């Protein structure tokens, strides 16, 4: 096959950045990005956005040169996406924070509450239970990030890590402060309320884990083909019949359980804000499912069965 020429221009000022000759037509966008990286050390492939049009959508790494609407000389427009950070790193950082922050409040480390309470423990058993649940939730998240999740996009802009960590860490401080406070008031309906809430929490945590495993098993490692998730033999996955993003559904459920367990307004706020954000994400995911698959089940809603 005849070899191609690739020209890379800056999307903003149309300045010629690089001319590559003798490029194989079977080369992928990722190959071209790697070649670009060799001559411009600053711009590693994850930071590059290459488009056919200065204002167009970025091309995917796996797109092949000869399948694109270009002649033997391909012109790509480059945009710098800024410093990138891997999803895995962001997830781990945003989860490790709350884990340790909560424990600091639980053990009543000095300078948080009045000195006479330093290193004391709460007399309410629900506070111990809440610490267990909160810690379990974040440990589970960390383990899932390390061993379960398959991220389809490797990186996100660096500033996201500051935004995300600020959100998770600040809310963790806010919640942990009140739950572990010496003047904490246990739930109004006592043991009954806590046990019911615990049931909801555990149920939703198992559900969340089941969904994450199911999504992981949807495609073999490295494959980028998208598939519709369906209910499996695991009862926790039967919710796929009614909902597109049950991972979010179970997450909201877990936090709802935690709110009822602790009867704490900041936790309620966290649940509500999380619910709003996850609903937006679920709607986006649902829409992309509908766009991608003509045969997508019509009974499904984005996050809440029949409702939302």
């Amino acid at each position: 096959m005849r070899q191609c020429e690739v020209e890379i221009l800056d999307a903003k000022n149309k300045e010629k950045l690089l001319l590559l000759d003798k490029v194989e037509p079977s080369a992928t966008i990722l190959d071209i990005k790697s070649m670009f990286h060799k001559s411009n050390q600053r711009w590693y492939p994850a930071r590059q956005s290459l488009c056919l049009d200065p204002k167009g959508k970025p091309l995917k790494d796996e797109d092949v040169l000869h399948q694109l609407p270009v002649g033997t000389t391909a012109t790509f427009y480059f945009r710098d996406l800024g410093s990138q950070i891997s999803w895995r790193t962001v997830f781990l950082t945003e989860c490790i924070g709350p884990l340790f922050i909560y424990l600091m409040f639980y053990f009543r480390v000095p300078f948080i509450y009045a000195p006479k309470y330093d290193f004391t423990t709460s007399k309410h058993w629900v506070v111990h239970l809440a610490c267990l649940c909160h810690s379990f939730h974040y440990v589970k998240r960390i383990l899932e990030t390390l061993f379960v999740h398959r991220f389809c996009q490797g990186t996100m802009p660096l500033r996201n890590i500051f935004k995300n960590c600020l959100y998770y860490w600040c809310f963790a401080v806010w919640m942990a402060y009140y739950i572990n406070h010496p003047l904490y008031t246990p739930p109004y309906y006592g043991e009954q309320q806590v046990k019911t809430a615990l049931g909801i929490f555990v149920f939703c945590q198992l559900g969340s884990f089941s969904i994450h495993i199911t999504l992981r098993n949807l495609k073999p490692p490295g494959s980028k083909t998208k598939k519709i998730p369906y209910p499996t033999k695991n009862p926790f996955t039967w919710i796929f019949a009614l909902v597109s993003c049950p991972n979010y559904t179970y997450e909201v459920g877990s936090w709802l359980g935690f709110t009822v367990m602790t009867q704490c307004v900041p936790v309620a706020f966290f649940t509500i804000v999380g619910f709003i954000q996850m609903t937006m994400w679920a709607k986006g995911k649902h829409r992309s499912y509908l766009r991608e698959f003509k045969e997508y089940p019509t009974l499904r809603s984005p996050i809440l069965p029949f409702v939302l």
Partner: protein
Amino acid sequence: MSAPAMGTTKTAPNDGSHKKKKGPGTLATAYLVIYNVVMTAGWLVIAVGLVRAYLARGSYHGLYYSIEKPLKFFQTGALLEILHCAVGIVPSSVVLTGFQVMSRVFLTWAVTHSVREVQSEDSVLLFVVAWTITEIIRYSFYTFSLLNHLPYLIKWARYTFFIVLYPMGVTGELLTIYAALPYVQKTGLYSVTLPNKYNFSFDYYTFLILTMVSYIPLFPQLYFHMLRQRKKVLGHVEEYTKVE
């Protein structure tokens, strides 16, 4: 903080691109014209009320009481503008408009109305006058824009008066919040302490201090944004006259 900032930025580009963008329908336009006329009239009522009260009393003191009711009514009415953005008949950001309107409503109700002792402060007059002049110009600007008949004077006023009015309003607002602090601390207004069954606490005094601090990063940003908008909107006219 005073409203001129964000509202300006959104309608300015709208002036020229009326024909390119699909504007609000006829019914929506009619409604918006009525809304803006009513608001212009309302703030004129407040302006007149201030002048009359000043002439009657012969002093700046305690003029707030003479316009308290229309001020509350028309400033609170501005909440509708958030709805306009949400529904889409006004091409502004819901978040930005919401933030602006809520800050005005906050000052009107949660500070001036709630802390009686500050109502006789001169700082209240400072921001009320700033708001009144700003809003009269702003709402008449929108009215004329919607009717495609914007006199240059109004456009000029909108993009020029803020230079003095914006800092004036901010000063009045900050001084008023500062004056309210001792009373809030003494009475524990809007504050919740532990223990309580919702395991929540809120200290309004600290909240007001944080609000005052937030003016430091926010005010310069909005002010310089307005100055840049001014150059963009009024600058072009100067260029045309130079060419001729």
